[in-house]
């Protein structure tokens, strides 16, 4: 097992990708992702990795370039954030429909306007239905691990789908913190060479991304849906394999002191560890609080979520984005939908928080629990609220 080292997480992510024998990267820099782009281009320029770094003129071009190179059979990587991801938007469902196992890091950042640059999840949420596997990470170690694991999941013959890894911008990307970096030998052992399902090659010509009319479009959408749902089995297998090799285990849904909890909170991304501290404080006061952390956003882990929250009386779903004019936060509506058919289900509260980089100290999490516990008449259940908003 590797020695613990300290490094900025964005740089470490580029280092980890550098261990993955990539053939090509096309990354357009954007805050707070830029350090990934910069360090990866350093690794290529210094000859430390044998890959092509394509300096594209936009994120639209970056995604187009990795679609092309992945189609040609090259292991391809990109990374972006916020407006860059929005600019890639129209290409994301093409990458997944063409079943190209691209991997992409997203340094999550608020979407304009107003222009902001700091962390929330409003960039990834509009991409939810693009047909990508979507994973949220909690700390630096997980950012590195998932950056490596993503290639194996994406390129598995039963998956062949693009994967995005959501790394909270600044909160994670700009943090110098400790982690273990796998060695080149360990990664070589874990990650087999990329075997594409088809390649663009003159010796064996094929057509990719062909036109399809109404006679086939429905079947193609069904096939994509099944592919994404079936990917969960492989994701679980690959995470198990990682746990055996590296001793760090990952599950679609993690829980903390949740078994006997009466009130649960659900978080995604880097807020999980801070929320954990709030649970400890509440437990010390005799309050049966617990935490559920959602790691796998797509394919959505319905069974694991139901199992994790079935015994709670109240559930606080936290969201880092909003669906304007809709039912509340996107995670909230997903969880409600997952529980609709359950006979026994908790009352659900939704707090939209940490928008545009607003800091969330431990006291905010305990405050949410206290507010929900004080709602003895359950009047605020099934509603959403912008936590901490100035009235």
């Amino acid at each position, binding site marked *: 097992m590797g020695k613990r080292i300290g490094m900025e997480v964005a740089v470490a992510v580029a280092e980890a990708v550098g261990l993955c024998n990539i053939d090509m990267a096309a990354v357009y820099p954007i805050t707070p992702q830029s350090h990934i782009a910069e360090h990866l281009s350093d690794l290529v320029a210094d000859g430390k990795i044998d890959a092509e770094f394509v300096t594209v003129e936009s994120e639209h071009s970056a995604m187009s370039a990795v679609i092309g190179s992945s189609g040609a059979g090259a292991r391809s990587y990109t990374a972006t954030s916020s407006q860059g991801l929005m600019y890639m938007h129209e290409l994301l469902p093409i990458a997944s429909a063409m*079943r190209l196992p691209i991997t992409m890091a997203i340094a999550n950042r608020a979407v304009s306007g107003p222009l902001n640059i700091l962390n929330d999840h409003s960039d990834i949420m509009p991409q939810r239905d693009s047909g990508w596997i979507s994973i949220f990470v909690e700390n630096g170690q997980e950012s590195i691990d998932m950056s490596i694991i993503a290639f194996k999941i994406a390129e598995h013959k039963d998956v062949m789908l693009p994967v995005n890894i959501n790394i909270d911008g600044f909160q994670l990307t700009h943090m110098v913190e400790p982690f273990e970096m796998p060695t080149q030998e360990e990664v070589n052992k874990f990650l087999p060479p990329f075997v594409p*399902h088809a390649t663009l090659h003159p010796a064996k010509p*094929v*057509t*990719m991304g062909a036109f399809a009319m109404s*006679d*086939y479009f*429905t*079947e*193609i959408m069904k096939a994509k849906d099944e592919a994404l749902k079936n990917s969960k089995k492989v994701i679980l297998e690959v995470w198990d394999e990682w746990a055996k090799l590296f001793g760090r285990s990952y599950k679609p849904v993690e829980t903390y002191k949740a078994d006997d909890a009466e009130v649960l909170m659900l978080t995604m991304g880097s807020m999980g560890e801070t929320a954990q501290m709030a649970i400890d404080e509440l437990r010390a006061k005799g309050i049966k609080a617990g935490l559920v952390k959602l790691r796998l956003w797509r394919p959505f882990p319905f069974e694991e979520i139901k199992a994790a929250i079935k015994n709670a009386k109240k559930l606080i779903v936290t969201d880092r984005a909003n669906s304007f004019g809709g039912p509340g936060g996107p995670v909230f509506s997903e969880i409600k939908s997952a529980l609709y058919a359950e006979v026994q289900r908790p009352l659900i509260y939704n707090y939209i928080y940490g928008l545009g980089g607003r800091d969330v100290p431990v006291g905010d999490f305990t405050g949410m629990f206290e507010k929900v516990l004080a709602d003895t008449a359950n009047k605020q259940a099934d509603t959403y609220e912008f936590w901490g908003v100035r009235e």
Partner: protein
Amino acid sequence: MALKTWRELPIGCVVSEPGSASEYHTGSWRSQRPIWDNKKCIKCGICYVFCPEGCVQQTEDGFFVANMDYCKGCGICAHECWPRAIAMIEEG
């Protein structure tokens, strides 16, 4: 040909048979067809060059014909033919 089910689709809907678009006879769209008057034709080949479908072919005697499986009847050949050897006539 029976349409495939979703289970039968290749991964990513890759078309593994090159040139299979030639099975699609775009000539079925046509409402007019080009007719060559070889008495006026000077074998310059401008119809061959301009045909957007690439369906104009040169015969052994040097004159030109269109493959009616693919000719959409757009009339560009007739428009470009400066000796006016090509006329567009109604189908059917």
